[in-house]
């Protein structure tokens, strides 16, 4: 109520914003708030046992605090630690590779008053594969300021030309040419422009930006500085997902260093000196805020709902001003482009996708972690390096991407094949495909912003459909229905979330026909639909049993 009065809003508007974000609780969430993630890699790594251990040790049930209010235990989506599952956040500190024993010890420590920061696990850089010096772009030695030096010799236009020549495309999944975007922003009239760094890495299975922000934040900062130089923007934000709050001290320190060195603030040294400030804004637990217009709304203090795309962000973005939004890795790569030269970058990769990219590989493999690859690399090589054995499926770009059959050895990371946004999640033969897809469907159902019908209702409807399939209640019609329903969602959704939500399912059906034949083709009599009669009668039987005194 106070907030409402302070900002002259009605209380329900404040509630509207607060209730949108997963991490804003309107009831006490415990002195120690524990978030267990429900990604499929966590599930496969034994999160169920970890959860049971937490429940026993804390006395709290999932979704609640314990009676004393000391511990709050909640579920959340992937927290960006897929290479170290089962992982959790306690007061936004990371805890990795949990086991029931570890949990027990942990909770005991917390009860004794040891602060979570002291108990939290160190997160390694986890580089599993890097490229030789001629080819490496991101994972190569770096000193702060290294990429800013060339600016002393480059005008903003010249710097922009380097970016354009490189052919660099956005690394967040949309692959829009970075040079084009920055030029468009430059050409907009007006002085007020913004540079936004999308650090809301929310796609489950993606953690490359985590690594960059933790171990190479300077690269990212410098990339943003280049963006400001070439576009004329003077202010920028890093929108950091709430799950990465533990990275904040490091980031702030890095920023402080840049201010101290004169590379941020007024009069940044360059051929044409300029001013640029960077702030950090924390997210609060909403995957959809990774969508650029949703992110801008969130940054403006609104619900993180994607906007109707009447204008591109470069035309009217943050505060309705020209805005450049790019992914963390994109800024890092841009810095390298200025450092190494646009032509050098363009000489790497393939004719359609230039340069290299980072992959975050996790799942059923011996070497989960960060991989830098040149575009054009075969999937089989990555699986090999990762130590994946008996692989069945690989999910490329997370739940919104493609479910690839691991035996398709000809697949490559390239523009017209695996146009991967970063996440590579490996599943071996013991995993159940439908369970994986069901996990994805539930993810989208929870993360939909809820504004448009097809995504809000469609994802829920799909969840139920997968529920049914998992119980063996599939019928021959299902194949056609899934195609039809997916098409509807794709054509009518307001933003990419709804459009991409059924990608995994559709690609899985196409890539694993034998598996799905078992679920769709089981029906002998096409007129009589499968129906779980006994299950449907169970509630009634239980009710009767209770009144008769025998449960």
């Amino acid at each position: 109520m106070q907030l409402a009065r302070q900002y002259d809003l009605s209380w329900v508007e404040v509630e509207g914003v607060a209730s949108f974000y997963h991490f804003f609780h309107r009831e006490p969430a415990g002195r120690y708030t524990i978030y267990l993630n429900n990604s499929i890699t966590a599930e496969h790594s034994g999160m169920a046992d970890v959860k049971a251990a937490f429940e026993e040790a804390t006395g709290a049930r999932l979704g609640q605090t314990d009676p004393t209010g000391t511990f709050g235990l909640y579920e959340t989506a992937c927290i960006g630690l897929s290479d170290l599952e089962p992982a959790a956040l306690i007061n936004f500190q990371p805890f990795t590779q949990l086991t029931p024993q570890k949990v027990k010890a942990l909770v005991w420590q917390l009860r004794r008053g040891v602060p979570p920061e002291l108990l939290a696990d160190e997160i390694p850089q986890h580089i599993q594969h890097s490229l030789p010096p001629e080819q490496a772009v991101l994972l190569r030695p770096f000193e702060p300021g290294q990429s800013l030096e060339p600016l002393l010799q480059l005008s903003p236009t010249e710097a922009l030309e380097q970016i354009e020549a490189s052919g660099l495309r956005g690394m967040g999944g949309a692959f829009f040419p970075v040079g084009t975007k920055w030029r468009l922003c430059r050409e907009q009239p007006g002085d007020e422009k913004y540079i936004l760094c999308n650090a809301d890495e929310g796609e489950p299975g993606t953690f490359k930006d985590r690594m960059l922000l933790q171990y190479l934040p300077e690269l990212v900062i410098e990339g943003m500085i280049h963006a400001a130089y070439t576009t004329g923007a003077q202010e920028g934000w890093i929108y950091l997902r709430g799950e990465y709050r533990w990275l904040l001290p490091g980031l702030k320190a890095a920023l402080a260093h840049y201010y101290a060195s004169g590379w941020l603030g007024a009069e940044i040294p360059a051929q044409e000196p300029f001013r640029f400030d960077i702030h950090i804004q924390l997210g609060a637990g909403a995957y959809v805020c990774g969508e650029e217009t949703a992110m801008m709304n969130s940054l403006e203090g609104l619900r993180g709902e994607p906007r109707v795309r009447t204008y591109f962000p470069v035309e009217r973005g943050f505060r309705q001003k020209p805005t450049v939004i790019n992914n963390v890795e994109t800024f890092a790569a841009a810095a390298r482009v200025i450092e190494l030269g646009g032509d050098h970058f363009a000489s790497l990769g393939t004719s359609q996708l230039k340069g290299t990219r980072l992959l975050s590989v996790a799942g059923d493999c011996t070497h989960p972690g960060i991989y830098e690859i040149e575009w054009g690399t075969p999937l089989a090589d990555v699986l090999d390096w990762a130590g994946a054995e008996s692989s069945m499926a690989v999910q490329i770009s997370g739940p919104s991407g493609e479910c690839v059959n691991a035996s398709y050895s000809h697949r490559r990371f390239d523009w017209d094949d695996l146009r991967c946004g970063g996440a590579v999640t490996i599943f071996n033969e013991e995993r159940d495909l439908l369970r994986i897809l069901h996990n994805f469907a539930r993810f989208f159902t929870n993360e939909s912003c809820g504004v448009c019908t097809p995504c809000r209702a469609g994802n829920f409807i799909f969840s139920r459909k997968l529920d049914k399939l998992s119980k063996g209640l599939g019928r021959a019609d299902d194949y056609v229905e899934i195609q039809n329903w997916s098409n509807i969602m794709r054509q009518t959704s307001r933003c990419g979330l709804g459009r991409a939500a059924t990608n995994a399912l559709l690609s899985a059906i196409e890539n694993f026909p034998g598996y799905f034949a078992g679920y769709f083709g089981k029906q002998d009599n096409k007129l009589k639909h499968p129906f779980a009669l006994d299950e449907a009668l169970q509630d009634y039987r239980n009710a009767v049993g209770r009144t008769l005194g025998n449960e």
Partner: protein
Amino acid sequence: MANTIPIIINGKTVQAQAGQNLVDAIRDAGTFIPSLCYYEHIQPPLGTCRVCTVLVNGKPTAACTAKVRPGQKIVTHTQELEDVRKGMVEMLFAEGNHFCPACEKSGDCDLQGLGYRLGMEASRFPRLFVNRLIDYRPERMVIDHNRCIRCRRCVEEVVTEDGKAVFSFVNRGKDTRVDIDYDEEPKLTETEAMRAMHICPVGAILVRGKSMARPVGERKYDQPAQGWEKAEGPIEVPKPRPGAPKKVVATTSLAGCFGCHMSLLDIDEEILDAIELVEFNRSPLTDIKQFDRRCDVAIIEGGCCNSENVEVLRAFRENCDILIAVGECAIWGGLPAMRNVIPIEECLLESYGRTMNLEDGQVVIPHHEDLPELLDQVYGCQEIVRIDHFIPGCPPDARHIWKILKHVLFGEAYVLTHEEFKYD
């Protein structure tokens, strides 16, 4: 003449106002485009329902979110687009708990009207049956979240005199809901509250004492509408052809109230002619329990609420060539499906455990070898067996039922009038 530019709609060049909203431009050009959340002066347009999806320069777009721009090529009607738009309406019906038969807005409801206009007989999506709140706390209004389609009109349009919002979306994803500010709402005048009720396209906002729609026959969607034929005369039964065997029809009422069977009999005197063409086999009208021959057509009234309904429905599917689900109950559960959001145990205890003046105070839930067991939900028939035709209504108009019957049995062509296609 204001600024008009040429654009192409469905292959034809038309002159349209530059910058005009595309929904209006399409309508001004005389082409039909459905819309639901679109409300002219709200800027930027809401773009929430997606019912107005068309192709703009090849890209699927909600027409209300686009403006007339030079060189635009718009396609409004392909089979796919029509299916996609109908899919939106069907999704909305599946998402909420839309019980047209018991709703004050029935007959004036835009969602319902769209269902009629697009010819939605049954939603292709299984209904979700999520328990949703009916909020009685506001002073003037009652908000029924079962019906809200989250179009957002009220959020953007309804403000108090000092500019404060009264409604807002809260939560996210499938839990998204429109909440009302209990401190701001009482500040609305009655006129303002009525306006909120009227701009709501469905029956989610009700002003106490003012919410009953106009009488049946005088409501907005009872009137002859564009695209519908006018009402016709009495039902006519075809003349029997000499030597032609009678068609065999079976009927049953599962978890129905029998209104659909009564509507079937509302053919009145025509039944004297009908029985020369049609004989009834297993049916409440004949009491034949076992099928003693294959039937051409089965009329199914009512959904499945217990184990016996499922058995009977399956038997009908096995013995009849064509199944017609008649009435809302058979299609998706109908009014009895109001119990779907409540655990069956609660329903049973309410009737048998807390009944007045119970003997001995002992709770007895009926359970016996001669009684069928109850299902956890009321299911529409298409969840149990393949259904060939759907006739919506509560009950459907007699003419609608007989038109479909004649079509299925004798191949007669039919056209439905607006009076005959109803959900209530």
